[in-house]
């Protein structure tokens, strides 16, 4: 069998991974053998997701992280690495509050916060793990975005600049 999808010696940390696509990805990575750090901004949800995956027999830790809070990002980096000794894979799924509507009606502070939570925060997250990935000469950082950033819409003008490649 092809071994390219074998993650049995890898650790993956995912923000926004207690429900929906983030949770599905966490489970998929776990099924490939990875140890998983799940996260959301709510402790209860984080604990529930970790418990659910643990019940399925996977090695899982839960670390709460509000990506709109720079202190949380630093703490998430430290605790995620401490959970299993390293992080090989970072999945950035979480975003901050998203406003929907035409740009001329959008609140400018909300736009600023959106850029911070979707761009700056994820770069700050990446900084937590990049040096050690480079040292080990292995690492993967994946930032999820929305189809709204690919397809223009008058309703989602403010989401279009999210997460440059």
């Amino acid at each position, binding site marked *: 069998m*092809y*071994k*390219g*999808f*074998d*993650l049995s010696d*890898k650790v*993956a940390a995912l*923000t*926004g*991974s*207690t*429900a*929906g*696509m*983030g*949770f*599905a*990805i966490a*489970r*998929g*990575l776990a099924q*490939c053998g*990875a140890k998983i750090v799940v996260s*959301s*901004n*709510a402790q209860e*949800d984080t604990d529930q997701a970790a418990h659910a995956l643990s019940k399925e027999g996977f090695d899982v830790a839960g670390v709460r992280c*509000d*990506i*709109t809070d720079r202190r949380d990002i630093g703490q998430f980096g430290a605790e995620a690495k401490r959970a299993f000794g390293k992080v090989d*894979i970072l*999945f950035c*799924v*979480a*975003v*901050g*509050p*998203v406003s*929907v509507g035409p740009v001329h009606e959008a609140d400018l502070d909300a736009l600023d916060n959106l850029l911070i*939570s*979707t761009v700056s925060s994820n770069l700050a997250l990446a900084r937590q793990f990049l040096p050690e990935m480079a040292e080990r000469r292995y690492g*993967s950082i*994946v930032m*999820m*975005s*929305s*189809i*709204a950033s*690919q*397809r223009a*819409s008058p*309703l*989602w003008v403010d*989401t279009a600049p999210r997460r440059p*490649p």
Partner: protein
Amino acid sequence: MGCVKRQGERDRTINGSDRLLQGFLGRSGAGESANGQNSGRSHRRAEEVVGAAILLASPAGAYISGQVLLVDGARSVT
């Protein structure tokens, strides 16, 4: 992209992509693209993005760097 379950009210910052997608589906209807065309995919589930995610995260994708991978269930070709 996959169809997702609804987030709780207090779940303010997680899974924003999911919530965007929900909004998208809510406006255009399941099985239809933004311009009302049918994408040919009647069911969208969160699990449908997992394969692409594993590829990017695994040694299988080690030769892929700095790319944007569109996972949209053929929306972009309809």
